């Protein structure tokens, strides 16, 4: 569950908008890694953030039908980083976006599982016919800052 957080002038916001295509996911990853490094997250945490963002972008590209762009928004809070990944596709209902049980290995179905494992708070919101918004939050670890 996502904790309610204020949005305002004191909360620095960085936004990246990319075409919904595989070749641009690396840019989203790099941008988030740069923001995270500026915030003094440590290397492991930066790697987690890159992976979570890439998984979210990959899902937007593969599952959000008829969406042509992805907007990645980073908000720097005193206690950590909030990242919102928004697509504009025809989404699945939020309840259907879930991590599967990890049983017999199969191709696919690991993205949402990884996002939930790597981030501290994760929330999907599906806006009727206007896409999926994933909001996730990572707190500063003890080792960062």
């Amino acid at each position, binding site marked *: 569950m996502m904790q309610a957080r204020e949005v305002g002038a004191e909360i620095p916001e960085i936004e990246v908008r990319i075409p919904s295509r595989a070749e641009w996911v690396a840019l989203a*990853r790099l941008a988030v890694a740069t923001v995270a490094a500026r915030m003094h997250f440590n290397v492991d945490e930066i790697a987690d953030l890159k*992976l979570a963002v*890439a998984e979210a972008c990959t899902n937007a590209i593969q599952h959000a039908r008829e969406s042509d762009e992805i907007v990645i928004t980073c908000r720097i809070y005193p206690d950590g980083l909030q990242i919102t990944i928004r697509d504009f596709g025809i989404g699945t209902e939020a309840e259907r976006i879930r991590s599967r049980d990890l049983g017999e*290995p199969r191709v696919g179905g*690991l993205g949402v*599982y990884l996002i939930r494992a790597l981030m501290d708070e994760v929330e999907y919101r599906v806006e009727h016919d206007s896409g999926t918004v994933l909001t996730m939050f990572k707190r500063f670890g003890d080792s960062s800052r």
Partner: protein
Amino acid sequence: MDIQMQVRSVNGSIAVVSLDGEIDVYTSPKVKEFIGKLIDKGTYTFAIDMQNVRYIDSTGLGVLIGGLKRVREHGGAVTLVSTNPQTRKIFDITGLIKVFDIYDSVDEAVNALK
């Protein structure tokens, strides 16, 4: 931001595939094609050297799982080489550590296939 791939053969039947770069939604189809072609030609035993893979995500894991399934149908096997803590962490949290044997060096990964 891209991936380089190489293959060399050990003992005639073991393919050592070296991957260098990032494996994501953009590059993993290239890796899939590269490994797929080797399987098509009758190679079913792989040591995949990921020591120079700086990044891998679920699309890359999907390619490895898909490759493993194909070679197993022919009694083949796949071992991996990686010392990257982040890579190991991802195999860990996805449970794939129980599916793939990950070694610290190519020699070990190749020996395990013999």
